[in-house]
């Protein structure tokens, strides 16, 4: 925040241009998404169907939730490096217990979410850098997951797998879930009166504290919600893969960070957009499919995905410089 406070912005002569640039900046991930879809459809017009969308976005559901979990933490100016390992742990718990012993599974979820909140408390109370604490947490999650399920296995309960392959009317399930998550996030974080306090706590915690709010309570609650969203990511992922695997989702950690930043978030804290984050997550998960359609050899795909991420982020940075 300090650089924002030090800068005395010049008043723009006309309001229309910054407003347009601002809209472009918000819309950039959406534009990137549309461009990618257009390329895919021009190569394979058959993909422009309910089933095509279903296949393209099927794997984006867990990433959307993981990115929203990351967004909550970035909103406070922290970063969560344990997000992917946590999702892996949840898939293990789900594949092992949810089918046969739902009570044990539920207890595990609650304990794990409470642990997440506890780490939030630790970070706040001891003023520790979140990057270190969550890095440590990621090893703890991975260790527990490997103890529970040394090799990938277990099975998702039938109802969960059935839900994830359900084909609701109008749009595929993945699009419905993404839209609902974006709407809920927008209402709670961007519109509600409590969302303001949360974003305020990320932007200027001292000011929020002076206004009589408990910043420590806010941090604990936000970490708990991040844990809950990561839990949802793990559940939906298990429903898709139908098994548990400790190492299934390490990429979610940084893809989630990428989605938040792509969607208009900032590491300084207090500046996040749930709608942008969801679109960012969809864009990132589509990038892989796009490269397959372009027949990029698999060995080059990861690198090419990085190039796409780099290009979109660079575009956003350029636009935000223009808005200033």
């Amino acid at each position, binding site marked *: 925040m300090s650089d924002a406070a030090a800068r005395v912005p010049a008043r723009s002569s006309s309001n229309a241009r910054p407003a347009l640039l601002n809209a472009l900046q918000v819309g950039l991930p959406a534009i990137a998404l549309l461009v990618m879809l257009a390329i895919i459809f021009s190569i394979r017009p058959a993909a422009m169907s309910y089933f095509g969308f279903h296949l393209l976005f099927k794997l984006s559901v867990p990433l959307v939730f993981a990115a929203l979990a990351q967004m909550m933490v970035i909103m406070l100016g922290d970063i969560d490096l344990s997000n992917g390992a946590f999702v892996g742990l949840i898939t293990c718990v789900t594949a092992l217990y949810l089918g046969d012993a739902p009570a044990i599974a539920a207890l595990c979820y609650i304990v794990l979410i409470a642990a997440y909140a506890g780490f939030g408390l630790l970070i706040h109370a001891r003023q520790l850098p979140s990057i270190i604490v969550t890095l440590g947490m990621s090893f703890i999650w991975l260790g527990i997951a490997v103890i529970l399920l040394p090799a990938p296995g277990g099975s998702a309960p039938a109802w969960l797998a059935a839900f994830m392959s359900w084909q609701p009317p109008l749009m595929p399930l993945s699009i419905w879930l993404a839209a609902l998550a974006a709407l809920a996030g927008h209402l709670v974080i961007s519109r509600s*009166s409590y969302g303001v306090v949360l974003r*305020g706590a990320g932007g*200027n915690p001292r000011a929020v504290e002076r206004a009589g709010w*408990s910043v420590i309570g806010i941090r604990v*609650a936000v970490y708990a919600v991040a844990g809950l969203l990561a839990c949802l990511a793990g559940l939906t992922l298990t429903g898709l893969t139908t098994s548990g695997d400790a190492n299934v989702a390490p990429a979610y950690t940084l893809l989630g960070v990428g989605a938040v930043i792509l969607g208009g978030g900032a590491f300084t804290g207090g500046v996040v957009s749930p709608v942008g984050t969801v679109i960012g997550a969809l864009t990132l998960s589509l990038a892989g499919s796009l490269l397959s359609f372009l027949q990029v050899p698999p060995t080059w795909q990861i690198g090419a995905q990085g190039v796409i991420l780099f290009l979109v982020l660079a575009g956003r940075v350029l636009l935000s410089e223009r808005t200033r």
Partner: protein
Amino acid sequence: MMNDPTLPKKDAAERGDADSPLVEVGNVRKSYDAVHALGGVDFHLNPGEVVGLVGHNGAGKSTLMNVLAGTIERSSGSFRVGGREIGAWSAASAQQAGLRCIFQELSLCANLTSAENTRIVHRSLRGLGWRRRARQVIGPVLDEIFPGHGIDLDRKVADLPIGERQMVEIARAFTQTSIKLRAVILDEPTSALGHEATEQLLTHIRRAAGRGIACILITHRLNEILAVCDRTVVMVDGKVVAERATAGLSRAALVELMGSIERPRDRSVGKASSVQAPVIRHAGRDTADLTIEVGKGEIIGFAGLDGHGQRERLRAMFYAARRQREALPGAYVAGDRGSEGVFSLWSIADNLTIRSLDALTRGGMISGAAARKLAETWSERLKVKAPSIDTPIMSLSGGNQQKVLFARALASDAEVIFLDDPMRGVDVGTKQEVYRLIRAEAENGRSFVWYTTELEELTNCERIYVFREGRAATRLEGDAIETGRILQASFGGEHV
């Protein structure tokens, strides 16, 4: 969890006696380790009263206000709100009692809009349509205090110019929803406001007082105090030294009250230093900005209120001296130890010798023996209290860390040493030792340029420049260096 259920619905002030003061503190103390920020202060605020609080930097004004606002916990002392004794006092209970504070540094969330920032201080602004109601709460207040302000309430605060941000923050403090507003503390509220907005604010303070809202106004612009306050409280060194009705009080009388403590002058003045040509001449930015001259063996002081351009000038002189080839070697002693002074992971020896590496190099490598000898000599001369010179610097007290930084400059080949308010937060004993050392080094022909916020230190100087509004405005020499004249020069001229 975010609502605080522990507070009673009716606040203490409402139940209290109507005649008793709104807030009353007795013998309040606040200390940080050895430093006493407040040394037993009695203060009270009556309903609808406007109190001015004045004093030099570090007099404890802001600490006192933070104690009243619940953001700093007092170390000891009584606290009464509306006549009722209060134990623990917090920011939440201050809000509940209708006490607001505008802090010296901006306390708006820059990532939120003005309307959203209003929501932060009002718990009742929630539920459907809260955004519209928040605009209706802050908008009219802003219109009333600063007519024609032209601020868009839905713009992010970060996008507003600094003056408008300050207006929003002031207006926000005067908003009222479910909790009755009783008092507003304004700590340097006019620093970023233009002349017109300042006048508007002062008018509003009187208007609010008429409605029973008390105000505490802290400002260095004394005419503002004289214009609106009923009562003026003067603080010096963490204590209240005077309390006067403002009616009939003059600027000069106020300044005199601030410097009323007699300080011993342990300096032999009138050294014949003007005989030789100055070793540094640093021209000002314009004709109103004095040229600063430093002679060999002289101690030159920079005085004035904090943040009036002393540090900038000091750095400009330091860099200017470095750029010239034939110039004397200089050294800079930082006041902000944490961010500009110490290498926190290094030992005392490493911290002390970093400025002298060139002199310690033998054949391209640092000579360990020479470095240890230098470090040992100087940590002994400065009486650094540590088991050995290999002790990590962070295990030392603040005063001893500062001594190491002094030693770093003195051990070097520097002929001119620039001091950037280095004694802030250092205990008295250490200060006296360092003063003696500075004078001894000056006798040996070293020159010092010393920016300080502590008036007392200026008595060590041969000549001082008092800064005001970014310029070296006044030059005082020899016997003319006295608290009253310095204060007069620091405060003089504003809106007069």
